[in-house]
């Protein structure tokens, strides 16, 4: 159950109030009719599924009804920042790539009872 900082409400709110809307920064091609089938198919159907930093679009559905972006670590589930539509993320890579990645790997591998 996440706790998410809504950049419009300017406070942390419970996940139940939000809907996830998939990968952020997917721009609709300006001239769809100029796209090849392949390009249009990429826009429609293909999304990243990274292990690590991911930028996601969410909406504060039960709240201010505003869409915004989240930078989230898909392994630790840490939300590293939230930012408004039209803004760019400030976190785009692991703090110190090699160390953090190994540390996370170590932390997450274990015996599930």
């Amino acid at each position, binding site marked *: *159950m*996440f*706790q998410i900082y809504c950049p419009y409400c300017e406070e942390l709110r*419970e996940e139940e109030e939000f*809907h996830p*809307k998939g990968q952020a920064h997917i*721009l*609709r091609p300006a*001239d*769809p*009719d100029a*796209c090849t*089938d392949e390009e*249009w*198919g990429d*826009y*429609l*159907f293909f999304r990243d599924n990274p292990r690590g930093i991911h930028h996601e*679009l969410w*909406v504060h*559905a039960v709240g201010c*009804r*505003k*869409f915004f972006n989240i930078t989230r670590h898909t392994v*630790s*589930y*840490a*939300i590293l920042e939230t930012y408004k*539509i*039209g803004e760019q993320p400030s976190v785009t890579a692991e703090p110190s790539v090699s160390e953090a990645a190994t540390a996370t790997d*170590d*932390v*997450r*591998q*274990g*015996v*599930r*009872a």
Partner: protein
Amino acid sequence: MNQQVQRLAQGGRIDRSRPLSFTFNGQTYQGYHGDTLASALIANGVDIVNRSFKYSRPRGIVAAGAEEPNAVVQLGASEAAQVPNVRATQQALYDGLVARSTNGWPSVQKDLMGLVGKVGGHFMPPGFYYKTFMAPASMWMTYEKYIRKSAGLGRSPAEADPDIYDHFNRHCEVLVIGAGPAGLAAALAAARSGLRVILADEQEEMGGSLLDSHEILDGQPADQWVAGVLEELGGMANVTLLPRTTANGYHDHHFVTLHERRTEHLADCAPASAEGARQSRARLHRVRAGQVILATGAHERPLVYAGNDVPGNLLAGAVSTYIRRYGVVPGKRLVLSTSNDHAYRAALDWHAAGHEVVAIVDAREAPDGNLVDAARQRGIRVITSSAVIEAKGANRVSAARVAKIDIDGFRVAGPVETLACDCVASSGGYSPVIHLASHTGARPTWNDALLGFVPTLVDGVHAAGGAQGIYSLGEVLADGAAVGARVASVLGGSAEPLTLPACEAISESPACALFQIPHEKPTLRAPKQFVDLQNDVTAAAIELATREGFESIEHVKRYTAMGFGTDQGKLGNINGMAIAARCLKRTIPEVGTTVFRPNYTPVTFGAIVGRHCGELFDPERYTALHQWHVENGAEFEDVGQWKRPWYYPRTLSGKPESMHEAVARECRAVREGVGILDASTLGKIDIQGPDAREFLARIYTNKWAKLAVGKCRYGLMCKDDGMVTDDGVTSCLADNHFVMTTTTGGAAAILEWLELWHQTEWPELDVTFTSVTDHWATMTITGPKSRQLLAELTDIDLDRDSFKFMDWREGTVAGVPARVFRISFTGELTFEINVQAHYAMHVWKALFVHGEKYQLTPYGTETMHVLRAEKGFIIVGQDTDGSVTPEDLGMQWCVGYDKPFSWIGKRALTRSDTARRDRKQLVGLKPKDPKVVLEEGAQIVFDPNHAIPMPMVGHVTSSYYSPTLESGFALAVVKGGHDRMGESVYLPMVDGSVHEAEITSPIFIDPKGERQHV
């Protein structure tokens, strides 16, 4: 008979003036207020509390807390009050408590499965289930029934639970889990800074180990200090104390679920409160914390020796707890086997209770701490470099076999001495309780000095005291206070540092690493040495697993079932890993680690459900006319969360109409006279702004540029993949003002969809969207006589030339300001009357007063479906499923191919797959036999004689009987259907019959649409 033979005359935290009566396995016993079920059973000399899971061996109580593996009971005097999986060590005794052993069929004393169990060592090796019950797979259900019955995993009640449960959403800056010395000190340090603190503890009383401690704090017994701290905390407005509350799950971002047992210490079923209100039996606190302090303490590790499961084998710490907290001694003659000083307390307590300590068997060569000295001073025999290698006895320990051992060589190093005794207590050291830290996903790390795993802590989670391997009381208190103060300062709080109570220093000699005790015979041939008592996993099973090639501890666990189920490896996991490490000649951290999952202890389903059950299971959304529908006998249909009238059966000569009869009558009324539908559930979105029209043109498939004020237009909405997602009529109220209707189920999603595009792609468009679904009530009157009826109630000019089809007008209806829309979902002359919902009932009733002479007939969703399907009007979500384009629907008339903006969905329509000619297309189906109503969802084939599997070419999406056509009819999607008009298709049914149907236009009635224009 019912004497408490093992009860001390004095001592303990029980109230001997309040005797309680309880029943266990049909026998009635006495205990005292303050007892747990376990302490009361021990007091009464009940040795066998269960039969083991796999081998059906008799088992007794081992522990005094949540880690108890054996005394898992079924609770409840009545069928409705049955609760499975209760640990007797955690269940407070109350008068009239009824409990049964979970395992043992037909009884714990005489056990059928025991026969199997005696020889079961050979029949039930590790991987037993996988090996034995796998084939044939079809038999699994049969096996499972008997395995469950004999293994006794508890059973759920067969009657409805009379109790209620609820949820509580809490927020705090600091959540402290565990109210032992570390937790109390941490909570007090944090609370004095004024931060909101929640302190949760799973026991009946807060205080943890201090409740049975020997130690003196500030010159007073430790429990005095506890009382003082609790009094201070209880008086602080910023502190919430939650006793009898287990932190069972640690979820993302410091969201912790706490399970509070509110009345389970009082009675089977929750008694009413003093004010007579119902009380919830259990409450699930959903806590969002800023920071969390885990003060969960440590569990003592038992030693693994032969016969260590015979009743009378206990943890050393449990022995102390039973004596000091409950005033019961679990035997007469004790042998203690230990690897550390701390466990000496059990022998000292036993001795102080006036019972005989036969010997303390210490694996170390020269233990010399204060407690060791104390034991020697009392004349207790201390045997060093030795261990109990085997406990003898069948239903109760009768002797301990003791020998010198060579730990490194893993062998017995001297002659065996047999000591007669009835209790063997063991201690192999302590394992910090790291379950909650594990739930965060962090892997614990092995600490060689502590001989245990310590938690790895994610940001914002802290451990204090025993939970991170600090065991001496003075250090535990200091650690708790320091962690509490540190957390407070992280959160910006500050307070005077806590003055810690003065505490005597006890010197302890170092513990040694001891897990499995060697036996004279090799492990595979020695009497069973149990690692996991609940799942009946032995040291031999683990050794065998490693021999069979299982090297990863994860695989060993799955193969042997170690740590499974409700036990979650609380006692056994570390010993199991140590044994695997020994067999694989590796170190414990090399073998792997152990991670635990929620829940820490079993949680009753009632607490998970809370009040979301029965009439409050899910919201029921009502229109403003709901009461009328109820009073007029409507049957209801769920549409999303809405309750919509489905049909209105009349009672004719004492007999209610069937749905078929009611729908036929309602259909005829609409086609021949006038009917009325409550259409208030349709989504309605108010759209304002100079760019409203442009926005509509982008979001809908059709054109909006020229829609004049006073006009309505049907629109189709696609996703950008070209698939239809919603439809509805949008009306132009003014140049910059529209009202859009959506499907009932799609209202919220479509509003979000509009916002998505506006906020993320086209913020430059000046337009706003506001839901007005609930503001307006919508009453649809439809049928040839609808104009006559409405004319009696309105000041609007209803003349067909001034108020045309697809126009809307403002005016009053029955004295209420209204917007009336001339749109039609039935194909008949229709007026949709919209009024502010407060007045809906007034208008509706007025329509019926005037409608009587026209036999105004209310109709429900079923008739609505028949009428619209006769006209070939689709229902998005029924005739479409997210894979249907406007062209598949034959609705090219509703697509603006040449609009300037490449609207949502347009580009996809020319993708190769979307443009295929043989896509499934919407058509009508007319069964050859008019009496047949095809099944919705039925698959369609072209050739019924084709060998199975037949190529399936489509399916029925809507199907009804039409009283107007006097025939069944259907809408369906069929491959290339638009080019197959007049052809026959076939629908093979489950019963082997095959229906034949003709592909037709989906419009069955009034194809030119003349009736709605009259």
